């Protein structure tokens, strides 16, 4: 496989929650070493899309392939073994356990690789001194970082980050986003879902905008003006008409 080849490909995914179709016919592909952002307003279907890639929902139509292997029907834990890790929305740490135990659980069923607890500490030095602390006692931003660490020690080929800015102070979010480029060096693909468009656009190599479960815009952030993205995000204005027409 050459660098730049897509590693995770979702082809024409349709995902329903009961009567509601959350995602219509959405395709995307992410390559190793790439930071890809899925943006969209609340309810656009981006979290559902990400959770489906992680295996928490089953699509009603379409396929997901990882490095050419069809993983559409695999359970979440089997996907982790093959190299897809999700940092879920709201952090979702094991709160009765310490930082160390959270990382040990994260690494227990992952792939072998260079990401160990020590390497996570290099990225987030404060964690070393608070290794034995209960995660329930950490601040929201610290918990978010531990949640990312827990996913990293499984050595994913594709890291899925769901709304990591949610409920955190802007300065904390900025600091977390600044560490993301360090992940790409290992040829890991990073897929972020974000409501904070400006934040996502600053770091992403490519992006895709969802509106009511459909793709309204995709490409490089530099290809579009802020107004065009805004229109695609909210679903009004000239850009959307010209794209859907």
């Amino acid at each position, binding site marked *: 496989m050459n660098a730049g080849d897509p590693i995770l490909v979702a082809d024409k995914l349709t995902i329903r929650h009961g009567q509601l179709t959350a995602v219509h016919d959405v395709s995307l592909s992410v390559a190793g070493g790439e930071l890809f952002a899925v943006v969209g307003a609340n309810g656009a279907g981006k979290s559902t899309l990400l959770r489906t890639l992680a295996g*928490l929902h089953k699509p009603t139509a379409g396929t997901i392939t990882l490095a050419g292997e069809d993983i559409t029907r695999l359970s979440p*834990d089997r996907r982790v*073994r093959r190299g897809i*890790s*999700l940092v879920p929305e709201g952090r979702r*740490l094991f709160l009765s356990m310490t930082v160390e135990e959270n990382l040990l659980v994260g690494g227990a069923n992952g792939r072998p690789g260079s990401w160990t607890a020590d390497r996570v500490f290099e990225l987030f030095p404060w964690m070393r001194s608070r290794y034995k602390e209960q995660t329930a006692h950490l601040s929201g931003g610290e918990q978010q970082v531990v949640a990312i660490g827990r996913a990293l020690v499984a050595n994913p080929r594709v890291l899925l980050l769901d709304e990591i800015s949610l409920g955190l102070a802007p300065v904390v979010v900025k600091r977390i986003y600044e560490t993301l480029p360090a992940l790409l060096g290992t040829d890991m693909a990073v897929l972020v879902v974000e409501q904070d468009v400006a934040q996502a656009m600053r770091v992403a190599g490519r992006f895709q905008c969802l509106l009511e479960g459909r793709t309204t815009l995709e490409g490089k952030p530099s290809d579009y003006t802020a107004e065009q993205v805004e229109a695609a995000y909210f679903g009004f204005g000239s850009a959307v008409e010209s794209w859907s027409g």
Partner: protein
Amino acid sequence: MVWVNAIVQGLMLGGLFALFACGLSLLFGVVGVINLAHGDFAVLGAYVAVALLPSVHTNALWALLFVPPIFAVFGYGAQRTVLQRSLDTGPLTTLLVTFGLSVVIQNALLEGFSADSHSLSVGALATSAFHPAHGVVVPYLRLAILLTAVAVLGSVQLLLARTSVGRQIRAVADDPEAASVSGVSTRHITGIAAGIAFATVAVAGLAFGMYAQFAPTTGSTWLLYAFEAVIVGGLGSLWGTLAGGCVLGLAQTIGEQIAPTAGTLAVQLVFLAMLAVRPTGLFPARVAV
């Protein structure tokens, strides 16, 4: 000296209560199943020993070698099939399913072994005792049961705290979805937790069978003590369960010392008092939400 003796007897009885409550505590705390058939499974364990030991005179201690492993495999299977399915449908379903299992086990045992009571023979261990002080009697069997309770609860606690499987069991108990996206095969891991719980139920059933006579319906009367030990000790804490068992055991023997028939009443009064004063139990689990 009679009071010292009552306390010694109470602690040893508490060991049996705690051993019996361990599986209930574990299955509720980490799997989320309130097992109304818990007492019947313990009695079933004693009957498995009756059925599989070569003769009624064989020392029942041999049963400790094979009944717990059989129960562990059975517990794993039960979790992967009927218990997990009932959990998926909702918490009320597990109550109904385990209540149904209780009825099934009692009636199957009545059919297979009649309503006569049985006991497990442990030879001289059943009758010998030593006297550490005048008026204090320590039967070896009761002491062994207390030590077994400490060993079983301690090793389960150690397994949960220190091993990879134990951490994964706690992770699933904390947040099953987060555990699954962290690579934990939640169903397999919950099955292992249930297997461990059922193995301890088998040990408790055997200990109970060596301690007293049992009949097919004995389990349901003992279930109440198991629930009380778990609640007095604090939900989700195994050391708490041991403490809870000892509190109930002490209540029983000290109550009997006050008036020979007041033992059971004392247990229930202590339990109600605990509920009123400290409803979270002696050692509530440190899970934060």
